């Protein structure tokens, strides 16, 4: 990475003033060059800075385990990098929607979340009153022609799922394009975080995505501990790692069950539904909540396990895993399942790299990328979880990567639970220091969770930027559907299982 960037490790705090503020053209040149050289965008966000908008980019160099941070001040418009670097297009739309900075020449400038602008006097879409536009009420991309038809799905779907709108342009069963419109879950998380930390903060972070409560709580805690210059006790670090992997297990096993359900393979669908609960209940054994809420706080963890409880928990996890092995063997050995999984919803390695996909969706394309290895923090610095990749980038690969990853997680959990370090699980964590900035990455079960936190002169949060893995990955789903049959959409969708609330914030 070029020397014009501030280089930092994951969860390493530095003075906010040390972030270089570059002219817009130089900033964009460095971003484009660094991406071309193999880095990816972890975060790219704005905040109000006088009459202008301060944009801060975080570029991750996975091979070196380094993060590059740089910024610029921009006025009412700037040239778009979206065509050159597709992984940036959604970030540019976000900055436009929030701060009115128009990316000139953006390949497709449209609302991202249909949220009101940060400055109510500057509405990027020129709306006069408080925006009443609802997501989905806008001109969709259309394919014209005889026998071309359009299918609209959502925001209220057939199942118990979060709201989103999917618009397909089809010819018979064949899908030309899928356009995904989100924003229905927007509830203003980032705005509520400004001015913290306060009594709401941890619960808010746990509610960014309820199925990733542990992951986001860890990313948050790592971040504010770094801002305070505080090191947690070893036992807390290990318990956090155990909780993170239990969360991954619950979701991966649940996903495999749902994928089985979508191809009508009921033995695995029903058993994985129940087995998922064994991992959720393991979290509840630790902290009382099936999603691990309330467990991770700045300073450590709120709950501990004595040796007996840890050993009992390990036995339960092992027993559950033996059943998962059986249930998933049935799934992947069934010819009717493989017939539906293989070659469906393919994302090429090139597309994956271009879009900056993360998590199992990226690893299924053969892109070896995992925060636990590339930007390790906490217990993962001492105990490495092997990274699993696939080759084919299809539904099968996304399922198989989950299956193998779950196995690595079980090995990790069992090993840790049977050898917990001694000592306390919590120590008082001081408040964040003023004028600091930290980038905190955690490998959640969907992929990289990125928290970029900057404190003001009083040590309060000036800006708390969240990037959910789904923010990068939704476009992957849209492209995976091109040329597929529309009847395979539920299966493709489930194989990604992206978060609406994590995207919409």
């Amino acid at each position, binding site marked *: 990475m070029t020397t014009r960037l501030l280089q930092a490790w994951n969860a390493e705090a530095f003075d906010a003033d040390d972030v270089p503020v570059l002219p817009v053209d130089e900033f964009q040149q460095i971003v484009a060059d660094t991406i071309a050289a193999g880095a990816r965008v972890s975060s790219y966000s704005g905040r109000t800075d006088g009459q202008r908008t301060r944009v801060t980019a975080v570029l991750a160099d996975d091979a070196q385990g380094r993060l590059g941070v740089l910024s610029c001040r921009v006025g009412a418009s700037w040239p778009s990098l979206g065509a050159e670097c597709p992984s940036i297009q959604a970030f540019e739309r976000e900055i436009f929607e929030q701060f009115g900075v128009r990316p000139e020449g953006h390949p497709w400038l449209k609302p991202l*979340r*249909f*949220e*009101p602008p940060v400055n109510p006097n500057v509405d990027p879409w020129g709306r006069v009153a408080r925006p009443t536009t*609802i997501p989905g009420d806008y001109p969709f991309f259309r394919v014209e022609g005889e026998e071309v038809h359009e299918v609209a799905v959502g*925001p*209220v779907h*057939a*199942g*118990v*799922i*979060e*709201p989103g709108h999917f618009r397909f342009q089809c010819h018979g069963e064949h899908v030309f394009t899928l356009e995904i419109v989100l*924003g*229905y*879950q*927007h*509830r*203003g*998380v980032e705005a*509520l975080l400004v001015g913290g930390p306060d*009594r*709401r903060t*941890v*619960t*808010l972070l*746990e*509610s*960014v*995505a*309820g*199925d990733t*409560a542990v992951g986001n709580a860890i990313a948050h805690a790592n971040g504010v501990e770094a801002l305070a210059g505080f090191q947690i006790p070893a036992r807390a670090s290990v318990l956090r790692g155990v909780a993170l992997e239990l969360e991954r297990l619950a979701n991966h096993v649940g996903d495999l069950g749902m994928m089985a359900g979508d191809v009508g393979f009921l*033995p695995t669908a*029903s*058993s994985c*539904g*129940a087995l*998922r*609960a064994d991992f959720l*209940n393991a979290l*509840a*054994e630790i*902290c*009382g*909540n*099936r*999603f691990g*809420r*309330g467990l991770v706080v700045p300073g450590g963890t*709120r*709950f501990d396990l004595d040796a007996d409880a840890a050993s009992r928990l390990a036995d339960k996890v092992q027993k559950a895993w033996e059943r998962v092995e*059986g*249930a998933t063997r*049935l799934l992947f*050995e069934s010819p009717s399942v493989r017939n539906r999984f293989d070659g469906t919803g393919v994302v090429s390695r090139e597309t994956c790299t271009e879009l900056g996909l993360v998590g199992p969706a990226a690893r299924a394309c053969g892109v070896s990328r995992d925060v636990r290895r590339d930007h390790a923090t906490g217990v993962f610095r001492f105990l490495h979880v092997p990274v699993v990749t696939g080759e084919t980038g299809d539904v099968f690969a996304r399922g198989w990567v989950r299956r193998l990853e779950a196995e690595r997680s079980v090995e990790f959990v069992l090993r840790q639970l049977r050898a917990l370090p001694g000592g306390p699980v919590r120590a008082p964590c001081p408040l964040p220091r003023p004028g600091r900035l930290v980038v905190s990455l955690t490998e959640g079960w969907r992929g990289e969770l990125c928290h970029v936190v900057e404190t003001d002169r009083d040590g309060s949060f000036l800006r708390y930027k969240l990037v959910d893995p789904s923010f990068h990955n939704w476009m992957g789903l849209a492209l995976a559907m091109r040329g597929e049959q529309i009847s395979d959409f539920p299966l493709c969708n489930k194989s990604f299982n992206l*978060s*609406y*609330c994590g995207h*919409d914030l």
Partner: protein
Amino acid sequence: MDGIPGILQFRLGFGRQTVAYPEGPARFPERFRGLPVLDAREGDGGRAGAAVCPTEAVRDPGGPGLAIDLGRCTFCGLCEEASPGAIRFTGDHRLAARAREGLAVNGSAPLLAAALDERARKLFGRSLRLRQVSAGGCNGCEAELNAAGNVQFDMSRFGVAFVASPRHADGIVVTGPVSVNMREALLKTWEAVPAPRLVIAVGACACSGGIFRDSPVQSNGMPGVPEIPVDLWVAGCPPHPITFIDGVLRLLGRV
């Protein structure tokens, strides 16, 4: 063993997964936090607990009216930690009420939702089809509602199930603080359900806005959507699947 014999062997080995509830006990982890029991005369009377509560759910700390509004409570247990003696969470999973204000409790009595009138029980008691509307939450409640239908909790053994269309439904289940962006879709879904219809608000967000309360881009839950009357309020963040099932069965007069 391959093929169908192998599948059957696995299924047999898997055994019965469905919980014993309601005939037998619903087993909860030891640390599960259910109905809180409060005593203003003990410890600091709940003052410190009120100060740390993320959702300002503790009412009248130190006073005779000490109570927790379970419509706001996220069951994080921070108040119990801060005010030992005055606030204690029990393992009682029954946490639903017919009126919103009924969720404000001090634990002196169990929180049991009253049943519908006889006519409504006759209509819905044997078969209740629900349409779920997710309106701006964190997907935690949705995950537990999905779990309520799996082989473990198997809600459909009571004739209760989620359906794909509001036209096929007897009512809706609302989760989330009702984001501005979902408000219209929620109203349309409710209007599409033929009357008479039930409305069930699930989780702290739907009951009060939860942790997102007072954010300008949401409605503070169903109390902020007066067009839609609510028949049952289910507390939790998220409510345990058994808590939801128990609330529905009590509404139907089945337990």
